[in-house]
């Protein structure tokens, strides 16, 4: 600790462009600070965070010998880092800086009482100065970063992120929980807006990923354990074996022999498959896999080629050390409830996802049929499972409604209508929507084309959604869709339908286990939550864990790839130079005072943050508390529990708090403040 | 010749060249400035005469209201006019003390 005389404090009160100065008299605040011991400079400025404002601080450090800086400004979350940078640039340890929030904590909540707001600002700044007296230089915690990233999810976002990270020179292990790569993109046929073939594009990417020497792919693999922190996560991966060897060449025979038949999830239940399966002929990896959940281990498949099949599904455990984790766990399409728009009630009601598969299965069909009937009229209904309103739609199992927009369905649905129009020109198409959200580049053209192609549009209000009913006997079509159509000024219309397609939205895949393991957050919409949608759109609150793709929210493939690349950039920033920096606000033990009581360990809520360890003291073995700085979040609970005051949080010590509190409650000579 | 004198000579020469290059724009700006000053005179006269809102100042100075708004805004930015309160749906402006 420097001598008292050597401490030279610079204090700065920001006007914040009026945000503070409209209520708080900044000049009076600065004036009240000038006389305080060790305060050598007290200034105000319109905007301390601006370049000019920051220069004031730098100049004072260089020319006035200021060696402790206090700035009263907006909340620390916004500019504390900025000012630490300012101070560091001028050659001072960045932790000899203290930030006082005068905006969110003062001017914004007391703008009706400027006099009191000014007094509060004076007290807060005095507290800041009191703390500044006790600031010590601290070092950022630098840790070696393992240049290895874990990507969870083998869909397009996970693949894209993995490839970008690997090309940057960082090792990647990608785990995919199913036996096959490609995720939802493999279940598409044509991509908008380009009209390109989905699987072809996907396989191009998969090939690049497979070919890259820095990427290891593990299918049938899930995350089952996580410890550690950014730069040094120890992760446990549990991998189910495939059950079938890589070069297995008798798939057709094995599948024919298998007695177990289950709905094929690749086609959303429209077809069935066996317990030894491959979703499509050129799936990657190409070897078929055993569906362990449904396999009865009867061994019938082994009659074709016993050597290639192993029905022992002992899982493999992999332990890896990684520096960062990318969560790319994707989405599942909303499945309508029983009876919702007739789903599950009438066989003629299908989802958009099913319809896409249906058309693919019907590749060479001249006439569209469904369950043997000719399809002449199709009604498509938008916003199923999206844009729900509490009180209008029933809540789901978790008590919530899906109040969000699923973003991709309008364009996807209209693309489907265009495809239908092209392949089956005679089919009548009715599109029932709330708003048409073809917002993206090239998307409006798809809407135009649908309209020009004779798709008939009808518009409902969100709180008066269409009803799907059985048509009266004698009608040509089995169903009718009743809609209050506002394109015809609220007329109630009955639309006949041989097929009803529900444009269903997106839900995140159920990843509660990953959320728990990584300690990341979910938003109200159940998707994974980013720290800040603008400042840090792909980062979670856990340093080192980033998001890619629809795990975060509905988005199309283009947007998922952009997000995945952005996530890769974040990983490269964290790991690229082999070192991560963490802030030093962690607990620190004074071993001389520590009696090894273990109270701190008992109250600590963070894994591996503090432990008692044997230390040799004068030849005797004693136990002392030892903090693992990287795991400690600096919450201070240990400080309150320690009977010997042997532990403190660096940068936020008990003595500093005491000094601040004393300053806040002190009998300040009350200056004349404007009422 | 000293450094300073040399520099001063260069500067004068450069300025002369600049003035030649920008003869047209300088002329244009001068005309613009003259017109601006006339408008300002009319506005300050109207304000001295008691007009406080934009419509009142426009009326008194016989200038279009949108023009008055722009000028009052410009003057307010550079502390030549202050806002003093409201009158109905309009804000009131005045010359700063010491300039009345």
């Amino acid at each position, binding site marked *: 600790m420097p001598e008292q005389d050597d401490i030279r404090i610079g204090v700065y009160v920001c006007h914040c*462009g009026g945000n503070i100065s409209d209520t708080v008299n900044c000049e009076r605040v600065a004036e009240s600070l000038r006389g305080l011991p060790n305060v050598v400079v007290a200034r105000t400025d319109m905007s301390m*965070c*601006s370049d*000019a404002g920051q220069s004031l601080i730098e100049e004072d450090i260089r020319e006035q010998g200021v060696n402790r800086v206090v700035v009263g400004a907006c909340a620390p979350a*916004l500019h504390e*880092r900025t000012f630490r940078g300012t101070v560091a640039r001028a050659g001072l340890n*960045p932790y000899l800086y203290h930030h006082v929030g005068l905006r969110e904590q003062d001017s914004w909540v007391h703008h009706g009482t400027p006099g009191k707001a000014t007094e509060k600002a004076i007290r807060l700044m005095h507290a800041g100065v009191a703390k500044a007296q006790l600031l010590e230089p601290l070092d*950022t915690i630098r840790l070696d970063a393992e240049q290895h990233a874990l990507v969870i999810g083998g869909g397009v976002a996970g693949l894209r992120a993995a490839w*970008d990270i690997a090309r940057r*020179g960082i090792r990647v292990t990608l785990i995919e929980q199913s036996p096959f790569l490609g995720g939802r993109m493999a279940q598409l046929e044509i991509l908008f807006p*380009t009209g390109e073939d989905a699987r072809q*594009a996907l396989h191009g990417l998969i090939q690049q990923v497979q070919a890259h020497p820095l990427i290891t792919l593990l299918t049938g693999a899930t995350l089952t354990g996580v410890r550690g922190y950014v730069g040094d996560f120890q992760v446990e991966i549990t991998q189910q074996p495939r059950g079938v060897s890589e070069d297995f060449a008798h798939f057709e025979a094995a599948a024919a022999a298998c007695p177990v038949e289950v709905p094929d999830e690749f086609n959303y239940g429209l077809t069935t498959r066996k317990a030894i399966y491959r979703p499509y002929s050129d799936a990657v990896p190409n070897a078929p896999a055993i569906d362990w959940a449904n396999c009865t281990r009867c061994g019938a498949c082994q009659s074709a080629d016993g050597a290639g099949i192993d029905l022992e599904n002992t899982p493999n455990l992999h332990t890896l050390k990684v520096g960062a984790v990318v969560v790319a766990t994707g989405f599942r399409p909303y499945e309508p409830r029983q009876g919702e728009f007739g789903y599950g009630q009438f066989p003629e009601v299908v989802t958009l996802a099913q319809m896409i598969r249906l058309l693919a299965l019907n590749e060479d069909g001249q006439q569209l049929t469904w369950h043997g009937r000719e399809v002449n009229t199709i009604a498509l209904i938008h916003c199923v499972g*999206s844009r729900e*309103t509490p009180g209008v739609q029933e809540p789901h199992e978790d008590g919530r409604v899906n109040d*969000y*927009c699923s973003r991709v369905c309008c364009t996807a649905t209209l693309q489907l209508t265009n495809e239908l129009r092209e392949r089956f020109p005679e089919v009548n198409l009715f599109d029932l929507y709330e708003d048409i*959200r073809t*917002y*993206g*580049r090239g998307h*409006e053209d798809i809407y135009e084309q649908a309209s020009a192609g004779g798709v008939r549009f009808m518009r409902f209000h969100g709180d008066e959604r269409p009803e799907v009913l059985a048509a009266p006997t004698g009608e040509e079509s089995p169903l009718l869709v009743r809609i209050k159509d506002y*394109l015809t*000024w609220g007329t109630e219309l009955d639309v006949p339908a041989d097929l009803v397609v529900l444009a269903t939205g997106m839900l995140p895949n159920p990843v509660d286990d990953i959320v728990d393991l990584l300690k990341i957050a979910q938003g109200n*919409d159940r998707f994974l939550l980013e720290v800040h*949608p*603008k*400042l840090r759109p*792909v980062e979670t609150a856990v340093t080192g864990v980033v998001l890619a793709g629809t795990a975060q*929210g509905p988005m199309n493939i283009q*947007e998922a790839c*952009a997000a995945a*690349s*952005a996530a*890769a*950039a*974040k990983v*490269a*920033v964290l790991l690229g*130079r082999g*070192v991560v*920096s963490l802030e030093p606000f962690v607990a620190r033990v004074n071993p001389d005072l520590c009696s090894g009581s273990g109270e701190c360990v008992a109250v600590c809520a963070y894994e591996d943050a503090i432990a008692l360890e044997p230390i040799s003291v004068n030849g005797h073995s004693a136990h002392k508390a030892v903090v693992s700085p990287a795991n400690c979040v600096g919450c201070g609970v240990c400080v309150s529990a320690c009977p010997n005051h042997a532990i403190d949080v660096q940068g936020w010590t008990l003595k500093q708090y005491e000094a601040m509190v004393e300053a806040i409650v002190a009998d300040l000579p009350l200056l004349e403040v404007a009422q | 010749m000293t450094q300073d004198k040399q520099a001063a000579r*260069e500067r004068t020469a*450069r300025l002369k060249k600049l*003035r030649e290059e*920008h003869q047209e*724009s*300088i002329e244009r*700006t001068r005309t*613009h*400035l003259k017109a*601006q000053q006339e408008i300002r005179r009319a506005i300050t006269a109207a304000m001295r005469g008691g007009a406080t809102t934009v419509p009142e100042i426009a009326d008194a100075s016989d200038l279009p*209201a*949108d023009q008055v708004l722009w000028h009052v*805004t410009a003057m307010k*930015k*550079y502390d030549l006019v202050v*806002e003093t309160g409201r009158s109905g*749906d*309009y*804000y009131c402006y005045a010359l700063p003390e010491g300039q009345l």
Partner: protein
Amino acid sequence: MSDYDLKVDALVVGGGIAGMQSALDLADQGYRVALVEKEASIGGKMIMLSKVFPTLDCCSCITTPKMSAVAHHDNITLLTTCEVQAFTGNVQGGYTVEVQQNPRYVDTDACTGCRQCEYACPVDLTSTFDLGMGATRAIRVPFSTAVPQKAIIDIEHCLLCGKCEKVCSVEAIDFTQQPYTFTIETNAVVLATGFRLTPTDAKHEYGGGKILNVIDALSMERLLAPTGPYGHILRPSDGKEPESIAYVQCAGSRDQTLGVEYCSRVCCMYAVKQAMLLSGALPLADITIYYMDIRTFGKGYEQFYQNAKAMGIEFVRGKVAQITEDEGHNPLVRVELTDEGRIVERAHDLIVLSVGMLPGNNLEPIYGVQPGRDGFAAIPAPNLFPAETARPGIFVTGTASGPMDIVDSIVLAGAAAAQAAAYLETSHSQTDVIPTAVPEVAHA
């Protein structure tokens, strides 16, 4: 000033939010970056806004940290008032870029941004930053949060009277400055040149720019911003505080008569946002939004829209056909109420046109990046490679590649940085990149 050559790993063209984010994401990895911006300050269009959706954060608070980080990053060379003139491939597989620095007539090393010169200058001009509603002077610091916070002279409107020189206490005025060209050598380029707003006079049906109380949405942003020209929401014809404000959606987008058939993507959200802010600023005002479809598609956006409805903002479906005005400059809207099937004429105090985004600069002449059908930069494989152009080592990000909001721009900027970094690692020798020390403070 002398010529100088600069060698970097990546050149970022454009200092708006996308350019800044790409630059930071590259610089944080240790790459040397040059950021070239043609205006006197970085910040682009974003720094002009009031609050941003859907969080309603103050826009300055989101943007200035990035501007400051760019200005101070050890790995970023910030070049303002600079424009790229020429761009050619070089023998090492990189690019040689010719840049022209346009003179400020102010010595930026000496200038402290004190603005005494601005106060002394006699020439008042309409401020482009305030969309013509406010004033600036022939010499000025561009705006209060400009980075760099230095003065610049608009020589086309300067009298060369020398008043600024007289009051400058650090002798920063320098009329001897001239444009000069220098060369940058780079291996990768990220184009973040942004967009243009649809001009307010684009549609004669909407008054052709002649109706005083018909303004565009960016003008309304300035009115809503704390640093706005009037300090209040006032209408331009006479400074009256409006009691009835209407938004015209799709004013310049989804419009075949203008040749702009695409959706500009951001206007529904910004109109809803502005309407919510106006409800706060003018609690007694009626606010109406005339729309075709409400496209609030992003994360948290639909909830934002429903909140606005609950606040009493009126949403009326109908494409405004015509705007006229009466003698008092009160605008009159003619629209078909499609839900009811009748045509009405409604008077309001102020109309805001939700104008769209047009392509900014044509990137073909200099960079050889062709425009797509919509005029924005063509992206050959947009689904899997959203930031890559047809030319190796040239990436495009932000609204240069199409209309998008700030969230999507920031994400795409990260993507462009990732692509550029991967390109640098795989195409160019690593020995050129000298890793710098990990900064003391990690950047946002």
